């Protein structure tokens, strides 16, 4: 099971999630190339260990467990994975 970052990250990019992720699977981080250009942050589904810490840290509730992503945000499952493809 992975977690997925969805729409409300766009324009927010608070990046608290990158601070608390225990496996560094959320990118780009504020000190990485491409952070300023990125619309939002993305979770690497291959690396995510399903700990829930990112979802709890997000100030705009952008992050969901894959099985809890609301219907209108399902496309973000693919968008997160595509960032690491």
């Amino acid at each position, binding site marked *: 099971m992975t977690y997925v970052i969805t729409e409300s990250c766009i324009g927010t990019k608070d990046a608290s999630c990158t601070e*608390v992720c225990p*496996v560094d699977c959320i990118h780009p981080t504020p000190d990485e190339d491409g952070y300023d250009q990125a619309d939002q942050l993305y979770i690497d589904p291959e690396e995510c260990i399903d700990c829930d810490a990112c979802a709890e840290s997000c100030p705009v509730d952008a992050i969901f467990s894959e099985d809890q992503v609301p219907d209108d945000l399902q496309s973000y499952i693919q968008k997160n994975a595509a960032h690491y493809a």
Partner: protein
Amino acid sequence: MDATPTAARTAPVLTDGYGRVARDLRLSVTDVCNLRCRYCLPDERVAWLPRDERLDDDETVRLVTLLAALGVRTVRVTGGEPLARPGLARLVERLAAIEGIDELALTTNGVLLARHVAALADAGISRINVSLDSVDRERFDALTRRDLLPRVLEGIEAARRHPGIRQVKLNAVALRGVTEHEALDLVAFARAHDLQLRFIEVMPLDAAGNWKPTDVLTAEQLRAIIARRWPLEPLEREPSSTARLLRFADGGGEVGFIASVSEPFCADCDRLRLTADGQLRTCLFAHGETDLRGPLRAGADDAALARVVREAVAAKQWGHEIHRPGFRPPARSMSAIGG
């Protein structure tokens, strides 16, 4: 005229009905954790605290400032996993600036420590305890349900090497059927890295309420296992300390036992706990807690909050009653109370 002696009204100490003075605060900054240790949390979706019930930085600083004015001198930052709270170093920096707070310590699972230790040390953390139940990667994964031992070891090393961190200790929960097999490897690791290791008897604080007395591997049993390999000599117990320390006869450092269940140390307990949602607890095992968040958010002034705190501490229970028939564990688990 007020019958209360002047000293009791104005002295900056929090005293309970047994004469114990509260000086040490265990401050839980979040209930969230990134591990799922079998003796603590279930693996399915954990019901964390509702977000708006957690204290923010300003509220936390306000309450710790109040407690410091009432005599609290040391703060140990805990969780959940405290590093799962974003911006922890910023909060620590503010706690370090509070008048009266002499020492800030951190208890962590170590997973995120390598990344954050420099910022935490700069902010004012000087002592770190890392929870480590196994140094075998597979068994660590089996116990915590996450394959993160290499990161924990990196975290321990980073803390050990940081000049701002005066002391790093290891805490291992002692579980019957598990720790008999881990103890010698853990001790060897601690000795090789010049770290004090303490074994903590597993307490009835798991979220599922599955704890049984027979789960406890007692300090005495563990001491015997370790002493067969490395002879031990007892050291004097420091007042209010949770651990009984022994030293290795060969000069290889110290090992400690926190015998919360078999040899409780309630008699000189100097601890208070503030949960991430602003509840004051005077004992890990108390059934009651005192709501500070409610009055705080309702606009209570310091005098009113201090009254609430004094009354709560005055009513602190003598000790836990794990061995008494009819013992009931507290309604909240360790992850929600703060270790």
